[in-house]
Structures are given as structure tokens and as C-alpha cells.
């Protein structure tokens, strides 16, 4: 691992990224441009998140990577290995023990602490892009706080589906100012965006970093007669019995039997270790 600088990026690049992070923290929800570097992995593999993590990690940190809630997907494993090799940091699958958590598509169920930092991988940082492809115009809309278009998108949802069907990347207003895409987390996670930990968002291909500092007001956009709901499958986890966690639906056999399990694998495991038992675990025990 001596062939790399700590965490792969050279110190100058890390300083540049840290400046962007500090600016992002100073202006919550504002997209700060940064000069994204080539990383030894393709775009779509979280190069934005990886660069933010690289600029954030110290040798004393313990690093965790989540991909759609799980620590064991190819994507999560390769990013974890990358920092084991290039930074030599400790890694963990336990949310509790991690000091820096890089994630794709989820916020952990466990309440994060003020000594933790969570880094989200972001594919498309611009929430207005859906209806306004011109970057010059979206930038102006942000600077003038012209956010009517976000509600046009929600209006279209309701008129087409009878409800706000946006289930992921549900737009939020941060600190009463900037409208922000929270990355493709399920809207179930939106209420957790008001947390004790620092939240950083990195978009590699789009070269943007943004942030939500601890205890920042984050409001999910909605209509008075169609209020925001942090929905999940109406079901307890079949393995650990949790009723408060976001669930993945798993098809079990050709007969169409299904099970619902916590998407946050660490949360589910720690509950089972603590003795909680879900429907299918009970059947197996019986």
C-alpha cells in the first residue's frame, strides 16, 4: 500500500475537496462544484462518494460501506477493500462502530451520533433537472429560490398516479432555503435527514458536493391536501420482527411466496442477536 498516498488521492486534491465540503456545510443544501478526479472505478460506482470519503477519512477512522442497506454487495465490498488497501483504515459492518459511513440508497436505521459522518453517493445532484435540463437556468432558479417547478413534478405525480408516487430521491428543502435531492434513498429515510451526524453528498460524474450539517431543518416537499408520508411496506420484518425499519421484499420460490426483511442488514442482525424473532424465524424454530 506504499504506492498510494493515504486514501489514494494526493494531499492537494484532498484539500480542494475539503474546501468544497466546508463550503457545502456552510451553505446547507447548496451544490458546490468541485474538480472530480479519475478514480480507479467506473462512474456509477460511487466515485463522488469515494472522493468525499477519501478527503474525510483519517488513519484513526473506522469505515463502513452500505449499498442499498447491505454491507456485502459487490459495490460495497469493493469500496471497503479500496480503502482498506489505500488508507489502511479499520472497517466494520456495525453502524455503531463506524466513524465514517459511505452509503448508496439508504440511511441506516440506527440513530447516528454527532461523532459520525455519513457520505452519500449521488448519481444526479440536481433536483430541478427533471423539468429543466438547462444548467444555467437551474442555477438561476436556486439562486433566486424559484422552486415552483418542484411542485409541478409532484403535481404530475398526483394527477397520474392519484398520489405522490415519487418513492426515491424525494426532494427536500434544507434550512428553509435550498431544495435538495437527498440521493436515491427511499422517502422512508427522509425524516432521518434531520440528525446528529454530518451528512455529505458526493456526485462524481456531475462534480458536485453538498451537505446537511447536524440538526439542520429538512422538510420534504408536499401539498396541503397530499401531505408527505414516509411510507414503507406495511409488514414487520420476517426475520427480526422489526416494525420500524425499511423492508425489502424477497421472492422465495416459484410459488410466489414472499418475505419481507430489513433492508439494513446490520440493523436486522443486531436485533436478532438481541433475541428478536420474526415470523419466518419463529416457524423455523418451531
Amino acid at each position: 500500500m506504499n504506492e498510494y498516498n493515504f486514501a489514494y488521492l494526493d494531499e492537494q486534491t484532498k484539500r480542494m475537496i475539503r474546501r468544497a465540503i466546508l463550503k457545502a456545510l456552510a451553505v446547507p443544501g447548496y451544490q458546490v462544484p468541485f474538480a472530480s478526479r479519475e478514480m480507479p472505478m467506473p462512474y456509477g460506482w460511487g466515485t463522488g462518494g469515494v472522493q468525499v470519503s477519501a478527503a474525510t477519512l483519517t488513519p484513526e477512522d473506522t469505515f463502513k460501506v452500505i449499498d442499498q442497506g447491505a454491507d456485502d454487495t459487490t459495490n460495497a465490498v469493493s469500496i471497503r477493500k479500496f480503502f482498506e488497501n489505500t488508507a489502511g483504515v479499520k472497517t466494520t459492518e456495525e453502524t455503531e462502530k463506524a466513524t465514517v459511513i459511505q452509503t448508496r440508497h439508504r440511511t441506516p436505521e440506527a440513530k447516528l451520533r454527532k461523532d459520525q459522518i455519513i457520505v452519500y453517493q449521488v448519481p444526479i445532484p440536481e433536483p430541478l433537472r427533471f423539468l429543466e435540463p438547462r444548467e444555467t437556468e437551474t442555477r438561476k432558479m436556486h439562486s433566486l429560490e424559484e422552486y415552483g417547478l418542484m411542485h409541478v413534478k409532484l403535481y404530475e405525480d398526483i394527477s397520474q398516479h392519484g398520489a405522490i408516487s415519487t418513492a426515491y430521491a424525494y426532494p427536500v428543502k434544507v434550512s428553509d432555503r435550498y431544495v435538495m435531492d437527498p440521493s436515491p434513498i427511499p422517502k422512508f429515510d427522509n425524516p432521518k435527514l434531520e440528525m446528529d451526524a454530518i451528512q455529505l453528498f458526493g456526485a462524481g460524474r456531475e462534480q458536485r458536493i453538498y451537505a446537511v450539517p447536524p440538526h439542520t431543518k429538512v422538510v420534504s416537499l408536499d401539498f396541503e391536501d397530499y401531505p408527505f408520508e414516509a411510507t414503507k411496506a406495511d409488514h414487520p420484518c420476517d426475520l427480526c420482527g422489526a416494525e420500524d425499519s425499511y423492508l425489502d421484499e424477497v421472492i422465495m420460490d416459484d410459488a410466489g411466496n414472499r418475505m419481507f426483511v430489513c433492508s439494513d442488514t446490520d440493523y436486522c442482525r443486531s436485533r436478532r442477536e438481541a433475541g428478536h424473532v420474526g415470523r419466518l424465524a419463529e416457524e423455523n424454530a418451531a
Partner: protein
Amino acid sequence: MTPLLQVKGIEKRYGARIGCSDVSFDLFPGEVMGIVGESGSGKSTLLNCMAGHLEPDAGQVIFGTRADGPVDTVTMSEPERRMLSRTDWAFVHQHARDGLRMSVSAGGNIGERLMAVGDRHYGAIRDRAIDWLGRVEIEESRVDDRPSAFSGGMQQRLQIARNLVTGPRLVFMDEPTGGLDVSVQARLLDLLRGLVREMGLSAIIVTHDLAVVRLLADRLMVMKSGHVVEAGLTDQVLDDPQHAYTQLLVSSVLQV
């Protein structure tokens, strides 16, 4: 009566070429001003200067705002001007696709200005969208259809509804009937005339079509090479043109 809009000495140059020069007039509440001329006469440049799409090199465009009375919109801040253009002003483009969001339903198109100024009740926004579809003679059943499924005439009527839903006090129109079939034009003109009367709208209409100003405009300005060559009451100017160029315009229309 206080003018709603006072245009004073507007000039716009493109390098050495004059776009429009030394244009001044007052527009009173409920009045419709027609601006006619051939392409290249400067009428579109003038319209875009007045509507804030182009920055004039000289002159003032003083609008009687609700909150602060007469304000020069040329020198007001961009956020203020953009707010004005979403509330008290409206702009109807010649090509409906320039003024519509083609990927958004008819209801969403009409509702956008309402949402832009803070309406947050879906049911109320939708009701107003449906009401406005009716007012521009589009069936309620089309409220969730995208404008790409509409005919040219319907698209233009939708654009008008999208603009008028916030009850603007001043509407800029750039060749609103241009590019439409003659029969479709006639229906659109009737509709516009009805709306202008019913809402007491003030409007500035740029067109090369004298039939449009004959039907809609109280007063008329004739432009040539960036200058206003003749102005007056529409009927007077069209029935008894004084300037040679106006006489040419009127006679060429009679030959059609």
C-alpha cells in the same frame, strides 16, 4: 388616469445596427396596443425590451406595480423582474412550444404559475386549471394530457390559459396567431378578444397581421426600420393612414 405602463425612449442596438430607437408611449389600464410592421422592423426587439427579455441600451419601461407604484423595470433587480413576469405580467409566444412545458400535462402547465407563487393545495390548483381549460375551450377530460397530443390551436389556447391563470395585469403577445391555419386563427382571435374584455386586460400585441390588430387593438403603432412611423387609434390608422409606409401596409393587406 395613471398609465399602467410608460415606455420612454427605448433604444436597442446590435452593434451599429438599430434594433429599435426612440420608442415612447403610454399604455392605460384595460387598453390593448398593437405594434405592426414587417419582419426586421424592430417590433419584436421592442417587445422583448419591454418584457425584460432583452436589456435596452437606453430608455425606461415604467410599470405601475401593485406594491410600490410606478417602477422602472429596466433597472429593477433580476429577482424582482422575474417575480413580476410570473405574476402581474404574462408573455404569449408565437410558438406554443416556447411557452409551454411539453413534457408536463395541461393541468401542470396551467398550475405552474400558481405553484410558483406559493399555492400548495393540489385540489385547488387542479380546479383552477380545469376552470381555465374551459375558458380557453379545451375539454376538462384533456387536463392530464400532454400538450404534444394537442393540435396547434389547442396548444396556443393552453399557452394563453397558462399565462392568464394568475390574473396578470399586462400581457405581452408575440404574433399569437402566427403559424396557425386561418380558421384556427379566427377562433383564437375571438377567444382572445373575449378574454381581454372579460378580464379588462391590458396587452401589447406584436404582429404583422393587420386583421389581428383590427380585432384586438385599441391603438396602433406602425414600425419601420426600428422607428415608430405612425401611431394612433387603430381604426383611424387603418382607415386613413397618413404615412406612406402605413399606406403600403394597408393596401397590401387589401390585395390579399
